[in-house]
């Protein structure tokens, strides 16, 4: 009886096959990499290209002001990253990376909060709040046109593998992985949307559907919710690892932040 019982339990457990990532996964061909920009209508492209029409520049301008103004008790970002300090041109193209103090994977927003708590005696800013969006849009805009170039090393590799697993794992009631849409079906249409390769080079991005600027992790939550999966939290380790996988997958693409997308 007991043994039969175990067999039943094992049988039930062995029905759980699908949580593993696709075994024959093939990454996007590096020679085929194209930005989401290529799939936009000419009108949306023009809106992104013109700094006066691109609504993302409202956040860039606001971020530039925040960058120069310290809070009551703290030094400004510009006091460390201004003339004579560490310039931030090109920095966003090398994120996410390991924070030397904690040894943990950190994206640009995380790094901005590290500066605040470690060097500015200020509180971390809320993810998806206007101030963090503005500062990250400003700092990312300083890398516009530069190629995304995150170099993997021994410390990054486990996160890269974790992100890659997430990309290839089916999830949600509709049981699809990122891979199914963004590697296998880019260029096809999903109702009104043309599916792009799902690159991260435009973030933070002004999305017409959001009518506001949003982070990459907000986009991840939208795609997860789209397949009726429980989304991860903003800045979760899963999404940071996924961000790293996308940075390597989209190596060489020009940073477009703040991009405009439907």
């Amino acid at each position: 009886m007991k043994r039969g019982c175990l067999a039943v339990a094992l049988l039930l457990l062995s029905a759980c096959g699908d949580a593993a990532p696709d075994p024959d996964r093939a990454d996007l061909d590096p020679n085929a990499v194209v930005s989401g920009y290529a799939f936009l209508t000419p009108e949306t492209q023009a809106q992104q290209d013109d700094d006066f029409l691109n609504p993302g520049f409202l956040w860039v301008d606001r971020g530039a002001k925040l960058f120069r103004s310290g809070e009551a008790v703290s030094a400004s970002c510009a006091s460390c990253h201004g003339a004579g300090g560490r310039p931030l041109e090109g920095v966003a193209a090398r994120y996410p990376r390991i924070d030397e103090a904690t040894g943990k994977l950190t994206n640009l927003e995380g790094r901005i909060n590290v500066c605040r708590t470690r060097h500015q005696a200020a509180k971390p800013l809320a993810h998806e709040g206007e101030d963090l969006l503005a500062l990250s849009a400003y700092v990312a805009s300083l890398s516009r046109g530069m190629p995304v170039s995150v170099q993997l090393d021994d410390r990054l590799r486990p996160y890269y593998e974790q992100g890659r697993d997430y990309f290839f794992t089916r999830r949600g009631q509709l049981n699809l992985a990122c891979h199914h849409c963004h590697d296998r079906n880019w260029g096809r249409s999903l109702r009104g949307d043309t599916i792009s390769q799902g690159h991260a080079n435009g973030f933070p991005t002004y999305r017409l559907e959001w009518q506001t600027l949003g982070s990459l992790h907000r986009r991840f939550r939208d795609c997860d919710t789209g397949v009726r999966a429980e989304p991860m939290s903003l800045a979760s380790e899963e999404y940071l690892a996924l961000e790293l996988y996308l940075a390597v997958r989209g190596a060489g693409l020009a940073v477009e932040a703040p991009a405009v997308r439907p």
Partner: protein
Amino acid sequence: MRALGTCLLLGVAAAATGCGERALVAPDRFSGDAIPHSLTGMPGDPEAGRATFVARDGGHCVLCHVVAGLDVPFQGNVGPALSDVGARLTPGQIRLRIVDASRLNPDTVMPAYYRVHGLNQVSRGLEGKPVLSSGQVEDLVAYLAALDG
């Protein structure tokens, strides 16, 4: 009796580990690449099927499929056109493809609309629920089986 109770408990525990839900359609209802008999024992309603095919909160099949002559803007093309699917497939074959197309192609992009087992990270509140009811699947079968191009 107690042994049976423990066994049931073990089974329930295994089922509750997130992905161990039981198959909704019993194995003996499948025959080759088809599910020959109606899931409800009744024929579906093609008009209701057309509505489910289109509705965002129904099957929303137009996300990926085109049906020529259907008055819906921006039908997708991730899946094949279904304008003449009734001439190519029997109702039983259509039924299986809606219930769980991964039985034919494990690598498929077509979601399983009447299956709850082997899923991962399903939205809270939707666990253990199929995308469509058996009645909605039958309505879709009736609608699609009548499309002959």
